[in-house]
């Protein structure tokens, strides 16, 4: 399964992954638009899904589910990034998402236990003690997304000086995601 996901199915898997990431971004960008442009109060600005299904947002399950899908996706699809540059950027995204996921795990735990950290009125993550939630999660999503998309770009168009990630056999990129592979005969 893992071999297929990082071999012949890597391109399809990445496409599905990107669709999930973009759908999640659509929600966050809509929420930002509701607050910054429309002037909605922060508790009422829940994006589109939260507008119709507010319980999904307040239960933290949607947030945690997405954080988990992201973490698993970044981990599972990492072996397919066999170049130096694409592997490096993907690993940065994975590292940041790991911490982001811990933050959401804390929020989910507080909701499930019915006990918030330090008696706060709402579930609160660690960095949220200093940074308001909307801006904090815009930050987390941005700093995970940027290295992720740069990794995908380098995976599709390997840079000139690229080598092979440690432990990988040197040679031409074999993943069907690499654009030049579609133009040349199979090796």
């Amino acid at each position, binding site marked *: 399964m893992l071999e297929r996901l990082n071999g012949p199915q890597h391109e399809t898997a990445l496409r599905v992954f990107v669709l999930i990431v973009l759908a999640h971004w659509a929600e966050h960008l809509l929420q930002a638009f509701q607050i910054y442009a429309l002037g909605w109060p922060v508790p009422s600005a829940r994006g589109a899904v939260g507008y119709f299904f507010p319980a999904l947002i307040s239960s933290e399950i949607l947030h945690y589910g997405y954080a988990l899908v992201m973490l698993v996706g970044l981990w599972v699809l990492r072996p397919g990034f066999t170049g130096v540059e694409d592997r490096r950027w993907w690993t940065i995204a994975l590292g940041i998402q790991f911490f982001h996921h811990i933050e959401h795990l804390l929020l989910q735990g507080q909701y499930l236990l019915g006990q918030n950290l330090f008696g706060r009125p709402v579930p609160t993550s660690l960095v949220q003690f200093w940074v308001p939630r909307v*801006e*904090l999660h815009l930050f987390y999503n941005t700093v995970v997304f940027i290295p992720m998309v740069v990794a995908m770009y380098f995976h599709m168009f*390997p840079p000139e000086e690229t080598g092979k990630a440690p432990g990988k056999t040197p040679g031409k990129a074999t993943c069907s995601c690499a*654009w030049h592979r579609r133009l040349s005969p199979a090796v």
Partner: protein
Amino acid sequence: MTTDHRGTMDVRNLVRLAISVFILVLIGVAASGWIWAGSHQAAAQSTASRVVLTACILAGIVGLMAIWRARPK
């Protein structure tokens, strides 16, 4: 320059243009939040928000530089 190579360059530029537009949207949202925070949040919260939103903008710039400075194989 071969037709294949020209085609690759076109697709490559199209892909990084699409990525760039999305990153610019993210930078725009972060900048809007930066302005909004100054007038809608308490001083300490506003400062904290502006720190992370500035980091978003910087991350966006780093991403743009990474994809536009790289030379293809």
